C-alpha cells in the first residue's frame, strides 16, 4: 500500500469515527469539539485530492468561524434547553425516525449503485485528460485558476451568492439593532 493510500484510509477512518462519535455522544460540548476533528480530517482528504485551497478554506470557515459560533450559541443557551436534549429518550429505532431512515437507505442505495456502475478509469473525459496530460501537478499553484474562473465562467453564481450574503448581513444588522425610542 502506498503512502497516499495509507493516508487516505487513515483520514477517512478518523473522519468517519469522529463523525459517529459526534452523532452518538450525549455530551454536547465534546461532540462539538469532536466535530473539529472531523473537519480537520476532511481538510486532510482535500489536501490528498490536491485541493489545498479548499482544504485551507474549510479550516478558516468551519473551524475558525462556524464551529466557534456553534460553541457560542451553545454556551449562551439556557440550561433547561440543554438538559431537555440530554434527557431525551434514545431508542435506536422508533417511528419518529422512519423518514430519516428511509432517506438514508435510499441515499445509500444510490451511492452504492454509482460506486458499482461508474468504472472511473473508463470514463471518456478522464481518458481524454490522461491522454493530453491535462491534470494537476502536486506543486501547481491553483489560486489564480480559482480566481480567474470565479470572475469569468462562474461570475453569475458568484454574484448571486454575494447578494445572498449581503441580504443576510443586512438582516442581522437589522435584528440586532436597538429599538428606536418612541
Amino acid at each position: 500500500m502506498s503512502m497516499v493510500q495509507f493516508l487516505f484510509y487513515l483520514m477517512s477512518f478518523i473522519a468517519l469515527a469522529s463523525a459517529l462519535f459526534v452523532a452518538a455522544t450525549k455530551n454536547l460540548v465534546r461532540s462539538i469539539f469532536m466535530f473539529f476533528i472531523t473537519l480537520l480530517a476532511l481538510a486532510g482528504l482535500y489536501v490528498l485530492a490536491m485541493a489545498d485551497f479548499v482544504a485551507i478554506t474549510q479550516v478558516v470557515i468551519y473551524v475558525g468561524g462556524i464551529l466557534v459560533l456553534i460553541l457560542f450559541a451553545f454556551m449562551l443557551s439556557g440550561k433547561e434547553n440543554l438538559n431537555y436534549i440530554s434527557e431525551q429518550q434514545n431508542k435506536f429505532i422508533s417511528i419518529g425516525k422512519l423518514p430519516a431512515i428511509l432517506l438514508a437507505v435510499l441515499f445509500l442505495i444510490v451511492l452504492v449503485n454509482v460506486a458499482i456502475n461508474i468504472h472511473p478509469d473508463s470514463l471518456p473525459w478522464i481518458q481524454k485528460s490522461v491522454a493530453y496530460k491535462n491534470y494537476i501537478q502536486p506543486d501547481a499553484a491553483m489560486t489564480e485558476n480559482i480566481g480567474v474562473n470565479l470572475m469569468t465562467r462562474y461570475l453569475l453564481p458568484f454574484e448571486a451568492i454575494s447578494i445572498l450574503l449581503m441580504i443576510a448581513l443586512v438582516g442581522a444588522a437589522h435584528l440586532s439593532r436597538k429599538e428606536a425610542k418612541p
Partner: protein
Amino acid sequence: MNFYITYFIVAIGLFGFSAIFALFGVYAERKVSAFIQDRLGPTETGKFGSLQTVADILKMLQKELITPAAADKLLFMMAPGIIFIAVYLGFAVLPWGPGLAPSSLNLGLYYIFAVLSIETLGILMAGWGSNNKFSILGAMRSAAQIISYEIPAGFAIISVVMIAQSLNLQVISAQQGIMASEKITFAGFWDVSHVGGIFAWNVFRAPHLLITFVIYFIASLAESNRAPFDIPEAESELVAGFHTEYTGLRFAFVFLAEYSMMFLVSMIAVVLFLGAWNTPLPNIGAVQLATWTTGAVWGILWIAIKTLALVGVQMWIRWTLPRFRVDQLMNFCWKVLTPTAFVCMLISGLWRIFLM
C-alpha cells in the same frame, strides 16, 4: 526516507527555538517592564538575573498538575496542547532567508491565517473545561475579540497580497529587495530594482501600506491577547482569564503559546511589510551595501533583528498603555479599524491598476 528525517529535525528545531524564545522573551519582558516602571526587575539568579526564567521553568516542571474536581477532565487536559500546536503549526511556513523556509507552500499566508484561527477553539476548550466562571468569561471574551480582530487583520493582509500578487511567503519576501524578478518602484515612481534596501520594502513600495501595517500590528496585538487588548485575562476582574485553573506544565504550555504567538505575528508583519529577510541597506553607486548584505546567513540575521524589534515594541506598548474596556475594544475594531482597512484594500486595487 531521508527527507522525512530532515522534516523531523526541522520540526524539533522550531520547537526548541520557540521554547528558548519564550524563555528569554519572559526575561526580556521583565527587564523591559522594570525599566519602564523604574525598577530593577530580576537581579538575583545569575548575572543580571538572566537565569531567572530558567529557574522558573524548572520550578514549573516539578509542580503538581492539579485538575479541578468538577472539570471536564479530557477537555481540560487537551486544551493547552491545542492552543500551543495551533501557534506552532504556523511556524512551518515562515521564511528565514533566501531559499530557507521549512515549507515553501504556495498558500503559505492563507495557511497561517487558517491555523491561527484554531487557537480560538483551544481557548474556548480551556475555558469550558475548567468549569470556572472566570475561565469561561475569559474564554468568551478572548474568542469574541480574536474573531472580531481577524477581520481588519485579514483585510490588511489582503491589501498586501493585492500588491504582491502571491500568497507564497517566500515570493512576497523576494519581491522586497534586490532579488526581485520584476520591476519594483519606491512609492510608484522611482525604480529601485537594483538599489534595494529599505526603499524596496512593501511599506515604501506603496505608502498606504504604512497605515495597513499599523492596522495589522494593532490587530495582531489583539489576536495574541496582549495589553492593551488583554481583557481575556484582565487580572483585576477575572483572576487570570481562561488559564485561571492551570498549573505546572500545562500553564507553561499556555505561556509558551502566548510568546510563540507574539513572535509569529511579528514575523508575519515583518515578512508582509518590512522587507522580510532583505537588508535595510541600499546600494549607493559603487558601494554595493545591499548586494554585500544579502544571503542566507544575513537573511536570518535581518529577519531576526526586525522581528525582535517588533516584539520589543509589543512589550513597550504593553507596559505603557492601560487596558481597553470591552465596549471600547469592539467600537475600535468595528468602527475604526475595519473601515480603514477597507479603504486601504481599495487603494491597493487602484495602486495595482494605475501605478504598477
